[in-house]
């Protein structure tokens, strides 16, 4: 799910012109190279997913085998073209992807791309909410832990971070539901909003699909508080898990930069410890932090699948789980490839942001 191992920087980092002193136009070149790297990444994943899922047979047999007589099954397989050579199918699939066609689901005959527009916003909303929780909790606490290193606050925070990490997101969600919804009746059990709110929000003109944003824009405060009350528990479940990882990440990297000569130099000029941690040590630490956070955003998508299932939050992950249960592997493949594209693009943006922070790249 998530990883605690400090990942060595990928090779893309080696392309950073930072090691060269003369970096004329270095940033533009870096962005271009990094952008071009998106495509092999996606291609590799698409290829792997395609071939792996076809090794075991065609999707129609998987979905309907046993429910249809063999001759009808053969007919449908032939009609869908699954009896042609694999390579032909592969290149046809690539061609479809290039035109933005991610396939049609078997079980309910919908375009996978349509799924993105229908459910993408829900997943995006959950991810944003969780990311806000993770950043608000993880970064300040990580700095506190680094500053009070090896003392009581650090000990408590570290054990808390490991506890967050060790609790599977669906178990955390279950516990939160049990306590706040079932026992205390403070918050709703599941879903993104009450029925009435949902209707009023979808009826809006040009909705963004992110409910709290729509509610705010329409000025409907009742709807807003309803949306927020639904959002709290999923955001906490997914956000705290990620916060544990962010906390550890910030702590490790800030401890690393706190030991550098330039922090000692700041100290020798009379700069306060608070400022040394929050400025002098934090900003240089931010470059590796952001890079790893980028990877964590991808990981959060995986967590979103589980969170959405736990809270019946109707996003891409929830749909994925449904199609898995229905054994509709065309839909599964489509969603997985779609997520691959999202991940690749997110990582690209994060890498650019990390590079922008580093003046050695900018100048």
């Amino acid at each position: 799910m998530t990883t605690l191992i400090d990942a060595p920087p990928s090779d893309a980092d080696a392309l950073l012109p930072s090691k060269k002193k003369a970096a004329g136009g270095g940033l533009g070149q870096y962005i271009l190279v990094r952008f071009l790297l998106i495509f092999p990444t996606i291609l590799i994943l698409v290829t792997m997913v395609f071939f792996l899922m076809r090794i075991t047979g065609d999707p129609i047999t998987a979905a309907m085998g046993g429910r249809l007589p063999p001759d009808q099954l053969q007919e449908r397989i032939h009609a869908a073209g699954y009896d042609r050579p694999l390579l032909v199918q592969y290149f046809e699939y690539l061609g479809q992807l290039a035109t933005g066609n991610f396939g049609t689901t078997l079980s309910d005959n919908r375009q996978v791309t349509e799924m993105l527009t229908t459910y993408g916003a829900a997943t995006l909303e959950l991810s944003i909410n969780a990311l806000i929780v993770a950043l608000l909790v993880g970064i300040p606490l990580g700095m506190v832990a680094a500053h009070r290193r090896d003392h009581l606050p650090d000990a408590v925070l570290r054990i808390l971070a490991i506890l967050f990490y060790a609790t599977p997101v669906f178990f955390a969600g279950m516990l939160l539901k049990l306590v706040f919804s079932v026992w205390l009746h403070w918050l709703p059990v599941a879903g993104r909003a009450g029925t009435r709110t949902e209707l009023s929000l979808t009826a809006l003109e040009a909705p963004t699909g992110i409910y709290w944003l729509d509610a705010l824009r329409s000025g409907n405060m009742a709807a807003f508080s309803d949306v927020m009350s639904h959002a709290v528990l999923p955001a906490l479940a997914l956000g705290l898990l990620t916060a544990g990882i962010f906390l550890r990440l910030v702590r490790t990297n800030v401890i690393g930069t706190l030991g550098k000569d330039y922090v000692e130099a700041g100290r020798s000029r009379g700069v306060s410890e608070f400022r040394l941690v929050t400025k002098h040590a934090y900003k240089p630490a931010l470059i590796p932090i952001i890079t790893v956070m980028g990877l964590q955003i991808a990981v959060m998508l995986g967590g979103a699948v589980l969170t959405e299932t736990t809270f019946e939050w109707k996003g891409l992950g929830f749909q994925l789980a449904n199609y898995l249960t229905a054994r509709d592997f065309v839909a599964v493949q489509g969603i997985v490839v779609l997520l691959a594209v999202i991940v690749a693009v997110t990582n690209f943006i994060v890498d650019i942001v990390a590079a922008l922070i580093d003046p050695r790249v900018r100048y």
Partner: protein
Amino acid sequence: MSENLGSVSDRREQDRKTVLDINHLQVTFATDAGDVRAVKDVSLDIKAGEVLAIVGESGSGKTVTAKTILGLLPETASSSGAVLINGTNVISLSAARLRQIRGRDVAMVFQEPSTALNPVFTVGWQIAEGIRAHAARDGGGRVSAKEAKARAVEALRKVGIPDPEHRVNYYPHQFSGGQKQRVVIAAALALNPGLIVADEPTTALDVTVQAEILELLRDLRDKYGTSIVLITHNMGVVADLADRVVVMYQGDIVEEAPARKLFAEPRQDYTRRLLAAVPHLGRNSASEGLTQRPHQDEEVLVAADNLVIEYPGRLGTPAFKAVDGVSFTLSRGEVFGLVGESGSGKTTIGRAIAGLNRTTGGSLKVLGYEMLNLRERTFKPLRKDVGFVFQDPAASFNPQLTIGECIAEPMLIHTRPSDAQARKRVGELLESVQLPASYAGRYPHELSGGQRQRASLARALSLNPRLLIADEPTSALDVSVQAKVLELFKDIQEEFGFGCLFISHDLAVVDILSSWVGVLYKGKLVEQGIGSQVMGNPQHDYTRRLIASLPVPDPAEQAKRREEHRALLGI
């Protein structure tokens, strides 16, 4: 200038006040192996406008003493005694009061300018940080960003950064190494502290840059009356800058004396040995009295002809020419000294001869084998004839193998001796480098730096090579250890008679060993000749500058050389 230096400081000493007074300082570190007493009992003082040098080898406690002055010891350290700065005891001060003193009363200059500057902030911001930290606390109200920046510009101007109004917005990586050290000094000067603690301020710099930084520090003392505590292991630097010298050894002060007196008539045994071990340009030259290049009738081991070595540039940036059209020969029995500053390409040449780097143009013949388009399989049989000694003795042994296993490795690969033969040979080799044969069973981390470098030499000699490449073999060692290793090296070379390429940045060291010396500058071999002639009568401009900027461990002679250096640069 040179004449009145001593007398000026003598006169000053009487009427100037004491800015720093250390009394019976003790510092203890907690380590895995138990408590270590880094500073045992140190008492010293420094007057206004004085440069006090604290010299010593590694483990002497000089850096720890320096850090104590600013209260910068880590949590694992505990200290006792008194460190008085303008009458305030730093050791017993609260954290908040300590911050007030840092930067305002005492500032620090670090060894490595590239790590002492924060890479993600502009230099102006970093200098202003110190100014603002104090303004907010000293009740002077907040200093506006504009004012702080103006003062940062002023500080940069003081240390001779050209165009400071513009450069104040630069990031550290936009400065060269010497300029970075100037920025570090500017940051230290920002609040006009009366005392600067400079911890090895020139050790990370090339010798020509070192001369400029020393000049700058001298200026500060002369113009602003700043007192400087100079921590260094380099006796040449001491001779160049210090008024008074404290010699430390294993946490204690061995001797304290005015600089001229200390160099002229050292009282203590340790000081005498230390001074004797420092290589002195022009003394003990291996080529003393030679008029002709020796060993020219012997077999030519290495022949470079118009050699070019390029490192490919990344992504369209042009390739970097590390070595550019270098030609030389090296014969059996001869020691060829290759000198140059960082980035001159000296190490690249050494590595190319050993087949660790590829050559990209011209010709390089090693033992008759053309290294251009090297093929490992055909070169391998020749490898037993090439020995290599690396700079860092700590990193050049596999930590998982014993010294004996490491030394036997070349034999196991080439001659496949029996166990008993190998053990016998390892014992002989260890004895020839003056280590007990029993050390074969030890692991690398159980040896000291000098011992490891001897073992490294033994490994290089294990197959009796015709050619030996030594890449800065003594740079990581203390001077007293360096002197012994150099002596051993000289003896062994005479005994075994191999041809040797000796690479070093230190002219004096090269002069002791090599009869024939080549000077590299930006990838080009600007001058080569008999050692004593190159050192005594350099022809090329760069060589002249290089030699003039090397400080010699003798204050009187150094004062004279400094004048010549200034004349050369036209100051």
